[in-house]
């Protein structure tokens, strides 16, 4: 490549390039004068005066506890609770003796449903960044032989005008 002729002729002040980007962006952002200074929002009269009382009261509010009705047959609850506890214990032991639940044993549909119903707060770009592409065998798409009949069926259903396809008329 041809050597630049001016390389040694011009110099810049020390540290010129270090702060260049910031200075440029500051300068570009200076042209705000066409925008209004005020945003036009208002609040109800006396709003800020009452805010302290309202917020303080809420902060010290204790969650309401449930009122439990007392019944005459309270003594039978203990017996019922004991039977239920024994039953749950036996059932629990049986369940946990079975196979361990692993991530693989979850059905794909369940995982998809969970991802569908849960807001993970991720953009599609962020999700794409976390997917490991090594595990995707893109080659399969190209290597799999597609039945000619299926191709014709697909075209028949999805193409309105066969002329658009520029098919070779000899075939």
């Amino acid at each position, binding site marked *: 490549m041809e050597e630049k002729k001016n390389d040694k002729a011009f110099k810049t002040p020390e540290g010129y390039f270090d702060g260049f980007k910031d200075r440029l962006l500051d300068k570009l952002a200076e042209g705000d004068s066409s925008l*209004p200074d005020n945003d036009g929002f208002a609040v109800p009269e006396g709003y800020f005066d009452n805010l302290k009382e309202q917020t303080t009261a809420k902060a010290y509010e204790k969650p309401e506890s449930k009122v439990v009705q007392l019944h005459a047959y309270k003594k039978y609850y203990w017996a019922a609770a004991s039977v239920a506890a024994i039953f749950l214990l036996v059932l629990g032991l049986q369940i946990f003796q079975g196979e361990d639940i692993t991530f693989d044993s979850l059905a794909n549909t369940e995982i998809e449903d969970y991802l569908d119903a849960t807001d993970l707060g991720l953009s599609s770009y962020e999700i794409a960044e976390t997917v490991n592409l090594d595990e995707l065998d893109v080659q399969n798409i190209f290597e799999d032989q597609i039945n000619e009949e299926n191709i014709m069926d697909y075209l028949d259903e999805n193409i309105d005008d066969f002329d658009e396809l520029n098919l070779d008329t000899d075939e």
Partner: protein
Amino acid sequence: MIAEETLVQQLKQKDSQARAFEVLIDTYKERLYWHIRRIVLDHDDADDVLQNTFIKVFKNIEGFKGDSKLYSWMYRIGTNEALTFLKTKQRKLGVSNDELQQRMAENLQADVYFEGDEIQLKLQKAIASLPEKQKLVFNMKYFEALKYEEISEILETSVGGLKASYHLAVKKIESYLKEEQD
């Protein structure tokens, strides 16, 4: 004005907590309100989010280690509360984020607590069209006059990135307003 460290200490101690919480509300209520209001736009929504923000601050003050300034921490809680509020609203209405933002800006026209003129309404619509981060940075820099260093601590983003976001936001708003004029 009471020093921030003293206020944090008082908030963590049972005997001085109540009084310190009142001081905290008095000191930050307006700044936080306007910050939240510019995200959710509606006064009643801003009021809900603001109260929840203070309650969260109050209940989580034990976990505040002082790695950042108290107001940055509160701003961060307020921002997250406001964004979560909008996400919930979006899900309830079954609309996209863009759609919700546009609806919110449209509703300003009939809002009794919006006294802006035509250009201010257009400005809000322009802001509503910005991506979330650019919107936050624009509001914090332009209306709240926060320094880049302060915004950087609140949003946990580099100053360079913030300057770029602000610059982009201003350009987009200007071209939006120009298009509307033509």
